């Protein structure tokens, strides 16, 4: 009985000090690093790492996570410790007496009902505050529309009249407000270093805020299972300095030039116009699709370092693999195998390379 009271008193003392403990941990930022060592498992240079935030939204989530994590660690140590201790202390020995038949202890039971309630209340306050903070529309945010397709993300900048895909280009150190919906099934937009996830739903608009501290490239990934090539529905977010962003905007607003003459690229333009690409792909200034624009806008294709839902880096080798048979790389894709010859593929690659 006495031991029970000792354990519960210890428990109380530790719980009393959790708040202080947590505050101290946050004062010493290095401790976060030691937490990583503690886990020692953590992967370095993981581009989709949600534990290395690079913007205020992701950071506020990260802080909340570590607060909960450390409280959980304390509870973990207490409970597993009590479990192991009882196993070692009370393991049957030849001379163990028959145990006392204790049916319960109301005080103790009330104690371990009330203490978790208090701990949870401690976590609940910052949780609720952060929920509302994250949902607020930031002032002076740049609005960008995100449209989910099987299996790539399309981006529209209504303020600049820009349509692009796969790579979301944003100004660094400026709040971004994403307005999102889906063209087909549910998708889930996730840039782990900038914020949590948010669904893209057909027939409904959802919102997500992003904010990158400084110029950098971030990885994005569709979170919700969305059919055959869900794994390959990826993305990049490119945060640029203000001047670079302005340059990018100006470039994006240019139409592509119609190529004339006999260059390989001009041949490629003919392939684009005649082989079937024009059924779905727009190149502003060259061809506009009648009806639904179900495929990425290619006007500035060469400006993007990835393609095919960011599943492939934009280089000649990948492009020739992709153009030879898209479904080989993304099962279920809506881009058919156009049975292009090698010459046609090479010409197309040359042409795509001009779309800067």
């Amino acid at each position, binding site marked *: 009985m006495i031991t029970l009271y000792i354990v519960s008193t210890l428990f109380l003392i530790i719980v009393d000090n959790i708040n202080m403990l947590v505050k101290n941990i946050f004062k010493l930022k290095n401790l976060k690093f030691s937490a990583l060592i503690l886990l020692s498992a953590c992967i370095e240079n993981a581009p989709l790492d949600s534990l290395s935030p690079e913007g205020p939204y992701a950071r506020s989530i990260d802080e909340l996570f570590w607060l909960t994590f450390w409280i959980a660690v304390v509870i973990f140590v207490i409970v597993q410790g009590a479990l192991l201790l009882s196993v070692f202390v009370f393991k049957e020995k030849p001379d163990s007496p028959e145990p006392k038949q204790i049916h319960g202890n109301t005080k103790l039971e009330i104690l371990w009902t009330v203490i978790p309630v208090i701990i949870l209340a401690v976590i609940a306050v910052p949780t609720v505050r952060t929920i509302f903070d994250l949902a607020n529309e930031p002032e002076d945010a740049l609005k960008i529309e995100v449209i989910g397709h099987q299996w790539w993300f399309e981006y529209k900048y209504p303020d600049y009249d820009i349509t692009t895909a796969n790579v979301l280009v944003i100004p660094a150190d400026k709040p971004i407000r994403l307005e999102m919906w889906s063209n087909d099934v549910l998708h889930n937009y996730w840039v782990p270093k900038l914020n949590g996830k948010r669904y893209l739903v057909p027939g409904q608009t959802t919102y997500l805020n992003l904010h990158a501290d400084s110029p950098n490239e971030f990885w994005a990934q569709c979170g919700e299972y969305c059919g055959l090539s869900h794994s390959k529905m990826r993305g990049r977010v490119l945060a640029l300095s203000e001047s670079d962003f302005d340059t990018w905007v100006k470039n994006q607003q240019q139409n592509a030039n119609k190529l004339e003459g006999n260059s390989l690229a001009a041949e490629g333009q003919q392939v684009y116009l005649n082989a079937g690409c024009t059924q779905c792909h727009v190149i502003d200034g060259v061809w506009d699709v009648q009806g639904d624009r179900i495929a990425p806008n290619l006007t500035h294709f060469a400006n993007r370092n990835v393609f095919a839902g960011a599943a492939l880096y934009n280089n000649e080798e990948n492009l020739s693999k992709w153009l030879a*048979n898209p479904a080989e790389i993304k099962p279920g894709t809506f881009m058919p195998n156009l049975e292009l010859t090698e010459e046609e593929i090479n010409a197309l690659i040359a042409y795509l390379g001009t779309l800067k």
Partner: protein
Amino acid sequence: MTKIIEPSKQSSIFRRPSSETGIWSWITTVDHKRIGIMYGYAAFFFLLIGGLEALILRIQLSQPDNNFLTAAEYNAMFTMHGTTMIFLAIMPISAAFFNYLLPLQIGARDVAFPRLNALSFWIFIFGGAFLYSTFIFGTAGAPEGGYLAEEVGWLGSAPNGGWFGYQPNAGMKYSPGTAMDYWAIGLQILGIASLISAFNFITTIINMRTEGMRFMRMPVFTWMTFAVSFLLAFSLPIIAIALFYVTFDRKFGTTFFLTEGGGDPILWQHLFWLFGHPEVYILILPAFGIVSEVLPTFSRKPLFGYAAIVFAGFGIAFIGFGVWAHHMFASAISPVAQAGFGLSTMVIAVPTGVKIFNWLGTIWGGKLKLNTPMLFSLGFIGMFVIGGLSGVTHSIVPADTQQTDTYYVVAHFHYVLFGGALFGIFSGLYYWFPKVWGKMYNESLGKIHFWLMMIGFNLTFGPMHWLGLQGQVRRTWVYAEETNLQFWNIVVTVGAFIIALSIIVFMINWIFSKRNGEKAPFDPWDARTLEWAIPSPTPVWNFSTAPIVKSLDDFWHTKYSEDEEGRAVRREEADQILLELEEDGLNPSEHIALPNPSYFPIVLASGLPFLGYAVIYKSIPLALIGTVLLLIGGFGWGTEPLEEEIHIDSDE
């Protein structure tokens, strides 16, 4: 002792079946023990298949950009792994325990409706077979207008929309073919089986308790059966309706969940998780019950805070209906709803914590016998605590928006459902092995099984925590090399194979011990509950004399009293009482009437898959066959004679 089958006094076209051995005796049985054993074996078979599917998934994920499986095959495998483990393995294995033990724990000779019990089992079998027939008959393919580089093989012809079947991806346009129909209708059939047994158990617990077995004297396992039955009864109708909507959307052109027809895909999520979250407690509460039996027995102490554990169980069951949207924090539910569901999710941690602390209170100060069932129960506490704590991190809504749909969640619910439910189930399988087979299992092999499984389990699901937090998304067939996730994925795959090894050890132990194990003594564990007050293996009639219960843990108190310090002291007459109980248990002195076997549960159940196929292939002949089977089953059921009862008389 002789068995007399009295001739029917009433003329009828049907006679009740009378085989007592052989295949027919099993097919027509209404004995809750035999049904329990069949449930157990069938569920274990599906557990092996689900495990095989998991190994296939893990081989694919052991390397980045692997091509061991095609995308179609991978998606089919993870869908079938989840569906199988939940609906065909854990739920029915819990049903096996309910069936076998519930009547024994409350001192009854059978459940309230023995034939319904058989019906429930056969519907489960036909439902499982129907679902798995998708590998033979089912078809799947690219979404309407999409292209595939290669044919979808037989492995990919299974349901591929996830066990959660999110709309509209699982709709006809994006999941064409028949595979998802097999899923929707298969679950519908399995749901009927669970509903029937839920009502059966509720009725049994309310009406069939032996004299003196008041509610607050029932074993905790019985209480948890009671709670689970209510959860089933209230949650399954929700998913039944939602699955009908899905089938109607897919087959008959309705648009309940399709935006283009004014439907709402998020509505499906609400309905699915309003069922799906209570379902989690349907899977875990039986393990809570098992652990609450095993810990006191091997600690030689009563359960600490019996009432608290019972009420916490019901608290969890009740709050479990108010937390469903925490599966949807990434959807656009409002901040108010997010806060509300986040808080309700935190609240459910409180009764769960109460249970854990009470279990610790139970072993504290005890005399712990660390045999295999006890090790699994202790392992259960350790692993379940981890799953519970990571569960609390999901209630931190902003943090959850980072964690959801990643392997962190996979880690979390495997710690709950494998480290929790399955560890509890294994604990129970070893604990009641002597009761069911009258033999002892091999303790060394049991311990090897435990340690292998403990190591394999933690290697498999531990690393998934940081894999998820560092960017591995669920349900992804491949991951890019640049994500740097490879190392821990290899560890996870190795862990999965260690689990497979531990299962092989378990099977060897089971088969060997069942044949050649030592004969189990009458009360091998010095246990507390009524099922140990009868011979092992349990006689067909359970109790020769209906027991009269005077307290909680009545059987223990017939053997033990307490000294002035409160320590247990074995009564002098205890051994004599046990001898008498055994003698009486084997030789009933009164006339015992047992329910008759029946052909009709299996006949009735066999109609359902035909109706399922009829909907999938829109076939009137199949619908007619199904209906005729249902009618024959129902008619025969209603008209078969009741008087032809098996009577067991004493030897005189």
